[in-house]
């Protein structure tokens, strides 16, 4: 049973002979699958392996090793707050507490409407602009309660959240 759209299936097939070794296509192929489905369950591992014509254990071993592949469905928006030292020194815990209260969930949980999942993750390389969180693949740095409210508020309304400041603006 194919879960992936024909468009994604075509993208994955196109990766088959892109690298000197077929196996190198496994990770980018799974990234395409996750981007579409938001989760990689066992049948998707099989589907991707079939499209690439590689043994299914090769997709399974990658999915189970790398933290960015979700084997269990998460919320529409993953709010990932850095829990490492530089962020801890600049108040990440206050941010986590604030988000917990605001969404009414604990770390690792998803809101009942399936919209938000709160996660505490390891260093995301924004130490100098701490504390920080990542939503999707957008970084929000120099986090304050107000900024958290603005980002979550926009997402609740289905709007594009206000960005940055990111490194670019820091240097300009």
């Amino acid at each position, binding site marked *: 049973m194919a879960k992936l759209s024909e468009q994604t299936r075509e993208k994955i097939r196109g990766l088959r002979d892109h*690298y*000197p*070794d*077929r*196996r*190198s*296509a*496994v*990770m*980018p192929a*799974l*990234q395409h699958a996750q981007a579409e489905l938001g989760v990689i369950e066992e049948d998707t591992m099989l589907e991707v392996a079939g499209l690439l014509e590689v043994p299914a254990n*090769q997709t399974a*071993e*990658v999915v189970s*090793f*790398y*933290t*960015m*592949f979700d084997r269990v469905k998460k919320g529409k928006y993953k709010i990932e707050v850095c*829990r*490492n*030292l*530089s962020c*801890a*020194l*600049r108040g990440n*815990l*206050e941010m986590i*507490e604030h988000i917990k209260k605001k969404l009414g969930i604990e*770390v*690792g949980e998803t809101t009942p409407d399936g919209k938000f999942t709160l996660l*505490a993750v*390891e*260093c*995301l*390389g*924004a*130490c*100098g*602009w*701490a504390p920080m969180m*990542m939503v*999707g*693949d*957008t*970084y929000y740095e120099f986090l304050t309660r107000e900024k958290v409210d603005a980002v979550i508020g926009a997402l609740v309304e289905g709007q594009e959240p206000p960005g940055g400041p*990111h*490194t*670019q603006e*820091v*240097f*300009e």
Partner: protein
Amino acid sequence: MSYPGQMLVTMANVHRKDSHKLEVYRRHGGYKALEKAIKEIRPDDLIQMVKDSGLRGRGGAGFPTGMKWGFVPKSIPKPRYIVCNADEGEPGTFKDRVILENDPHLLIDGMLCTAWALESNRMFCYIRGEYGKSMRRMTDAVHEAYEAGLLGKNILGSGWDCDFDVYNGSGAYICGEETALLDSLEGKRGHPRLKPPFPAVVGLYGCPTVVNNVETLATIPSIVERGAGWFAGTGVEKGTGPRIFAVSGHVEKPGCYELELGKVTLRELIYEICGGIPRGRALKAVIPGGASTPYLTADEIDCTLDFVGVESKGSFMGSNGVIVMDDTTNIVRATLVLTRFFAHESCGQCTPCREGTHWAERVLFRISGGKGSPEDVDLLLDLCSNMGGTTICALADGAVNPIRSSIQKFREDYDRLIRGEDGPVPGRLCEVVW
């Protein structure tokens, strides 16, 4: 903005508007290095040039770059690969991101010069999965470069072909270890390989491969343009050129500062360049080179910022992620945060690391929560001696450094927690709830 010791090489363009675009990079002399290399420098001479420059790797180990290139056998009839290690993940380190996001063409320029020297036709840039913006900027820059004839077939009319792939990781600190990175690029779990053989001889797909850090590769164009002699004349004897110092934690002005090696001290970096400690607090500890390097105390910061200077105080330059902690910081809890990281990121191949990091985390957790015993400190030291030097890669050694140095230098923090004089402080650094 200017600061003492400033020497802008890899950060020379980042402040410019649209610095990530080809047009802007070219307007300020971009790809001149590549042109010069192709027209004037024979590949083997370029390797010699980098050797003469004294450039050492900027990723963490500080290995001489030219020597690494020199290990690549050109006589083996196999492809040679150039791999850029952009899997920046060492806690406290955020310098490569500045280049990837703001000056991707500088990196491509440097990688092309490297590929020219190694006579390679294929380059990979392995970027950590979380760096979405870096990924987009690099991908766009690669498209621009292909369209401008700087990548692909017959580069700048030289008859030389070279292709470029941006490869996205999926979240694994261990893939910053070069052999784990190669396994990951091959589509496997990121498991470090036993060395030797080194990647220079048996690397990606079993072929000779050079793996260099982003900042290292971004330094190459300046050496090509201005000469090995110029570069060798900067910095100090055992560490030439500048490095980006990424400062975080308790300082007024955290951020990235590109400093000539050996010209300023760690004290000057913290108190002058970064504006000192907020709220007038006193300094307690500094981690000078990312989470894998030993702590320095407030009395150990009068060292010059170069390999020898930092090593003279018993720590390392590492990846240059400087984490500053004031006197409100409990070092046991800081160490717990770092140890939890290493436990989370251990790939699981070697027993001492897989078991040791988690065990140490549990012991530190116990002590941090006021439930430790005096024997726990000895247990930690015992764990450290069983982890250090017993594994395939250096992750376990990195995990040992903060634990052992915290016990050696901040024993009082352990003792106070064990005596119950400093119980869990709500809201203070790492009330570990996750």
